């Protein structure tokens, strides 16, 4: 039997050029405007010339290799921490893999999404505005909710007025990207972002939107984050009041996420606000019980 009949032309091509043919693109070419794409390619070329080792490190990531991740307890790929450990110098190598070159090895569907998520989360952790075009491109072009969510959080982490406005507009549009935008905006822990999320929560009626906003507020309004940066503002207070208003009108299925968010924000006045809410006339029994539960949780979460 002739060799040609044993494999199709396509398969033979794959076997002959595995490193090229098996590469995994991560972002469609159209995700970046031509001008931005050219500019990025130029920056990548320059960085590669001066720091080839980091580009090399990204060619073989442990967290997307089955023989590695199947040994972890989760038994599924995860690459964010590995990428974050590369530090700020990995900005352009990561942008190259995400937006230009793709990953030089074949990946399964779950591994591909995990790598998209990991790159976007690691880029987000750098909070470098030079990543913004690629982050926006990923937010608009990717289709997996986890990857879109990671892009939104990375954009939120940039925390510029532009990004707050961009995510606010995207959030108002609704849908999968809208939910991701609201949650991602939480990575911006400025009081302006908290106010946007609080206003949106006041208007929200469906469970998915309320929960996404609650998660965003729990991050944006965090008192521990403010303690970490040594600043205080009205963010926790604004977040707590909005969350409690939503809690009082929410259905039973939505309340747990709102309760977690209230607890996660940790605003000092929350116990007092809840106590006042409990004294309101004409509370139905389920709301009364939910507030009692919330009160218990808040009591236990006070600093020792």
């Amino acid at each position: 039997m002739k060799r040609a009949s044993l494999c199709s032309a396509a398969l033979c091509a794959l076997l002959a050029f595995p490193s090229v043919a098996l590469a995994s693109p991560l972002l469609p070419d159209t995700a970046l405007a031509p001008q931005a794409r050219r500019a990025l390619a130029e920056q990548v070329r320059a960085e590669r010339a001066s720091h080839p080792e980091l580009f090399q490190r990204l060619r073989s990531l442990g967290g997307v290799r089955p023989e590695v991740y199947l040994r972890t307890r989760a038994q599924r790929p995860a690459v964010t921490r590995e990428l974050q450990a590369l530090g700020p110098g990995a900005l352009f190598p990561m942008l190259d893999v995400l937006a230009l070159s793709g990953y030089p090895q074949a990946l399964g569907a779950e591994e591909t999404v995990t790598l998209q998520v990991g790159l976007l989360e690691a880029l987000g952790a750098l909070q470098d505005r030079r990543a913004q075009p690629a982050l926006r491109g990923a937010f608009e072009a990717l289709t997996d909710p986890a990857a879109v969510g990671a892009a939104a959080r990375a954009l939120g982490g940039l925390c510029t007025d532009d990004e707050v406005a961009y995510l606010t507009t995207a959030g108002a549009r609704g849908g999968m990207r809208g939910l991701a935008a609201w949650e991602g905006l939480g990575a911006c822990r400025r009081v302006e972002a908290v106010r946007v999320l609080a206003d949106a929560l006041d208007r929200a009626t469906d469970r998915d939107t309320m929960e996404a906003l609650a998660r965003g507020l729990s991050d944006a309004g965090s008192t521990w984050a403010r303690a970490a940066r040594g600043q205080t503002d009205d963010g926790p207070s604004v977040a707590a009041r909005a969350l409690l208003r939503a809690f009082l009108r929410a259905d039973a299925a939505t309340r747990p996420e709102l309760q977690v968010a209230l607890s996660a924000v940790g605003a000092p006045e929350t116990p007092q606000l809840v106590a006042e809410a409990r004294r309101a006339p004409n509370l139905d029994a389920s709301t009364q019980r939910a507030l009692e539960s919330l009160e218990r949780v808040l009591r236990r979460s006070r600093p020792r």
Partner: protein
Amino acid sequence: MEAPPPLPSVRLLVDTNRNGVLESRPDFADHGAWTPAHGAVFMANVDDDDRDHAVDALDDAVNGDNDALDLARVRVEPWPEAPTGAVGRLALSEGAAATVKLYRRTDGGWARWDFAAGTLSDAELRAGVEFGIEATDFATQRWDGMAELSLTVTRGDAAADAAPLGTDRVALKVAPWVIMNPLEEAYRVFVVDAQRYRPVRLFVNDLDAATQADGMELFRIDGLNPMYRSASDRLMGPDVWAQDIMEFGWTGIPGPDGTLHAMPVVLRTPPTMRAIGRFTEQELLGPDFGYTWKHTTRTANGAGWDPSLDSFGNLEIAPPHRTPTRDYPLGRTLYGTAERRFPDRDLQGFLDAQGVQGPPVHLDTSWLHVGHIDEFLSFVPAPSPRGWRMLLASPRLARELLEGIVRENPAHANTLMFEGQSFFYLTGAMEGQPYPAQRTIASLLRDEALNAFNQRVQARIDAQREILQRELGVADDEITEVPFLWSNIERNLAGALMPGTVNLLVYNRSVVLPRPHGAFLRDTDFFEDDMIARLSPLGLTVHFAEQWDILHAAEGEVHCGTNALRRIPLQSRWWEVAP
């Protein structure tokens, strides 16, 4: 004194009063009904008394005298006046027929009873006949564990629709699989060993030292046994998650001496691709040691099936307790679930069907990357009226402790945590690209994203705590908070950043914790000292094991990498527990 009423002629006898002995009159009362107070039980015969590496109930033979002990007895009572030509036929209720087997005692031993063709002659009815009954499985979502056995005696030449000479029926219930709880006396600890790998060696050697000091047997599962490694992963290191691959339980029926006739039964984790799970069948299944495996196909599980939730670090048992509304003398099953992720459907159906440690408390683990409840929760014995305490992870406490360290001495802000430790993704040779884990206390306290994330993790734990306290009736002062910080592994899903010291091995009055690699102040690890101070007053001997590289860096800790076999509480009366 008035004579007792005469018994009917056609009678089946089972151990209705659960004293391990068949007695004509005491066991006849209400023998057709089953309640927690009354009714016969029988056993899933899932051990391997003839050592043929197969569960005994799967063949059609009684494999020796030891195997015969696993059959509950059923007797067709003698009917000396049975008319000539009378014929007896036995039948099983429809739901039980696929899972229940009956054996007839013969001169030479036991013979499988054929319900379709088998009949009892007039002579046999006059003399009485002894049977043994077993199940091939426990209750599942397809069978509630109840069996009704009936005997109908007719004239041999009677028309099909003629009235029978007599009928009788008995109700029996299969014994459940009962999960062992951490307060029960342990006698063997399990770990996966592969001495050629340094990270494994460090952990196993520390565990060996701890167990030796306590006189506890340590069983080393050979992680390099080719049978325990998938064909495709021979190049990998061993699957070290001894907690996840198996859960120990027991099953039993009343024995003649007032205690249980029981056997430990290991439940194997569902995923077929976890070759290390074969250990349970290869080395544990044996005489008086049962084995069961519940799993269905990927197709049957459908979208949303997460094999990680099939791991038994996600299945725990709260020790025996009482709430204002109910007793849980065998403890209560705790199970991690998530709204859009679920475990193997057959496993969940099986656990729900056992009944005596339920209804299960479902805890939300959707916020965890691995998704197991043992990442934030454990139980230890305690000298209190309850007899145990609940341990809960607390990033809040970790943060407060770190702040306290710096407040006491601002220079300590520069003290390194995890000094010299690395995270690295292990390759087959257990080597990888390391990246340093160490960072100062100040960098942890000033990390805005990390702190916001930990505050949310704390809120998630607090929400589960509320459920646990409500369902188990645990008071605030019966909880010990265990301090460690968490990190965002990916997608806002949490995993322990500091070694998760709540994820510990408990055996008797000892605990083995992951070495925290915390802040070294005055030559000792502040977080080791802290855990000793929290647990020693409970009468516990506290050991630490080095497991950073092999377990912690791969998102697990000591509990995940170990397992413990415990003594069956032979005085237990599971049948009295109302489902």
